């Protein structure tokens, strides 16, 4: 249950904060959520990782579909020499997941007593 609450809360707050703050708001959100909702460090990491992975991946996927993959394919070619929009969606999700995951880990250690 905590896992799901943390998952949803991290995504929602990050989405809202994204309109006002720089991209690294996701780290702060994940940290705060993990500190407020105590979970085992591993679970905290995983819930934040998945939450932000899906937030960024779904968000970019929707933009990408509306864009007919025009830009994602160009950027993928620039970074990875492949013409693949999926790669850009996955990499975006992974970067967010990783950042949020580590922040949540720190948040959970802040709360953990032993």
């Amino acid at each position: 249950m905590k896992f799901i609450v943390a998952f949803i809360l991290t995504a929602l707050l990050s989405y809202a904060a994204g309109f006002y703050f720089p991209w690294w708001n996701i780290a702060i959100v994940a940290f705060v959520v993990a500190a407020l909702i105590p979970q085992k460090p591993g679970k905290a990491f995983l819930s934040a990782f998945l939450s932000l992975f899906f937030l960024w991946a779904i968000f970019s996927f929707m933009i990408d579909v509306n864009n007919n993959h025009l830009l994602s394919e160009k950027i993928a070619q620039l970074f990875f020499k492949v013409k693949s929009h999926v790669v850009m969606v996955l990499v975006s999700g992974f970067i967010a997941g990783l950042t949020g995951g580590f922040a949540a880990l720190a948040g959970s250690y802040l709360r953990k007593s032993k």
Partner: protein
Amino acid sequence: MRLLPFLLSSAATAGLVLALNTKIGPMPPLGKFLSPQHGFWQNAEPVNKDYNEELSFPGLKDAASVYFDERLVPHVFAKNDEDLYFIQGFLHAKFRLWQMDFQTEAAAGNVSAIIGDKAIQYDREQRRLGMVYAAEKSIEETKKDEQTTNAFAAYEKGVNAYISTLTESSMPLEYKLLDDHPRKWTNLKTALLLKMMAKMLSSGTENDLLNTNAKSLFSMDEFKMIYPQVNDSLEPIVPKGTVFEKPGIVPVKPSTADSLYFGKKDTVTYSEVSKPDKNNGSNNWVVGGSKTKSGSPILCNDPHLELSFPSIWYEIQLTSPGNNVYGVSLPGTPFVIIGFNDSIAWGVTNAQRDVKDYYEIKFKDKTKQEYWFNGAWTKAEQRVERIKVKGSADYLDTVAYTLFGPVMFDESFSNDLSHHNNYAIRWVAHDPSNEGGAIYKLNRANNYNEYANAISTFNCPGQNFVFASKAGDIAIWQQGKFPARWDGQGLFVMPGEDSSYMWQGFIPQQENPHSKNPELGFLHSANERPADSTYPYFIPGNYIIPRGIRIVNRLKEMNGITVEDMMKLQYDYFNVFAEDARSILLKYVKENELDANGKKYVDMVKGWDLLASPNSNGQTVFQTWWDSLEVEIWKDDITRVTPAANWPESQTLMELLKKDSAMKYIDNINTPQKETLFDVVTSAIKKVSVDLQKEETAGKLEWTKHKDPTIYHLLKTILPFARTGIPVGGNGDIVNAVTKSHGPSWRMIVQLTAQTEAYVVYPGGQVGNPGSKYYDQFVDTWAQGKYYTAWFMRRGEEKDARAKWTIQFKKG
């Protein structure tokens, strides 16, 4: 709290955020860049994007409307000129901000501040060429003209109004990739953009440095033979037989010229870092009503420039009281540069004239504070150039300014530091002038006199302004400020120790080559010498001959001309140079000495239809063979020149061989035997037939595959947002002048019937953002030689279905 894991994971998070927020090598700050709310995803425009908007700015005087058609061409309707140019600035910024910002920074020599130390030499050259100095002088001059000053000021406000709306998310993609930010627009940046055009079109049109080297080896007679001023096959811009008036100025050759100038055998080791492409040429022509089916004139123009994304052009219609003009504009400056209005149409090609000379300066010492001039030590101004470098300390460069101009080359610049000669440049682009003012007036000209008056103050880069009016007049002026030179002046580096070698004046503007309503019923220009040898001035330049010949040949034989005929001519693939050159190759090749492979390729050239079509094998073989022949003939001679000289033009070689098949340079001086034309033509094909075979096996013999036409993003090597393998034929000396990444940057055909008809296309798209479907929208249409019908929108057509989106501007 578990302190250690907490600290470790906190540190890992902070480190990660920091790393993902920093540009590392070529990679942008990844976190920022990949964020769907901040990064590149925000530049991925929905393909069905709605461009309707209502905007208000305190800088506006009144309400105004902009109607976009389905190609995103804006039709701007404003109630006064200030609002009109405010909105033009706003639209340029909205659709092309990064491009105009980057190009003007590049013109000023500020690229290192954006991409780091690899651009230092480029930046130094821009500074030493005096680009900022030139732009400052032109702003000074512009201040004398209220209309241009107001237009520039309104434009500046409009660009900045857009910049102030930008957020991290809406920043153009290139800024995000380079981790850069837009700079505030100024009228100096507008002037810099015009000077960028001046460099592109009037700085690569001289060969003084390489000519000086050639002179060290060749006698003046030899020099004139291999680098002739007037080619035999020239079709000049003003028709042959035009009578020229007695010159208003007759420059006098200095008495020391034979010994100190023509006879001097020194060489130059400096070379330019970024010399403009010689193919920066263009075609334009106009046919009078006597030759058209409609009875009204038809005007055509296709300027040939480096093809890039975003395109150098932005299509627009500008309407304000007393002004209704349609055509292409240059993002970075107000006005329409090439286009038409209710009464006239005009187009430009480059004059290719030499307006830049080098003078050798003698300084008292290394501080370059004083130089020897007219028998006395004269003070040189010192301009300290501070070049900002991303990631390193500023680079300081001191440039000495003499009476001639800035000392571009000295022992600190550029490639070879063993020679310590100092070369100052005298360049017309440094003289005060207001090109914007000329274009402002041209936009509003209603007849021949107003056109001729408008362009008369256009100084640099010299252009061939072709003209047609609804009244039925056709005309052309080669307009620019051109030095009046004595015979041979400025072909080579000149002595700079006194005033005797300075320019003695300029050709009076009225004497610039021009023609109005000629008997033939048409006029043209295609970067050739503007007049034949009866023109009473010495006018060196980097002229291109073949395209003009083809255009004249076609227009002479055509009658009852329609717009479709003109479309075909702009797309024409006929290789007029090869018509003569092929007969030389086929006449002198010794087929019995060739293997089966060689014979096969000779047969391909024999059976070739002389068209440089995309799928032509003959064109590829012919071009390769001819290039090989040039190596056979010139390599032994030209490479004797140290450090380097120009290779003679293909047209010149063809004419020399046509006149004299025993021309002395055919012989290879490095071999004991004497080669004949038979020998070199035969060895030329032998040497390339192996490579041709390889290309054929790889499926690359077809001309377009051989040439691989490509349009790159302006950041070429940094961004791969290019279109490669565009299936289009042509070549630099063919009317459809597409080379590897250079060619017709805009095609326009205007028929001046009561209701103006205009057909246009350019190889790009209205939106500079690579994430927009409009980024490269017109490329395929352009490649196929097709056109869009321009909508010259009238008041009252606001509800027309062609007005797809509207931006309403309000004061507030």
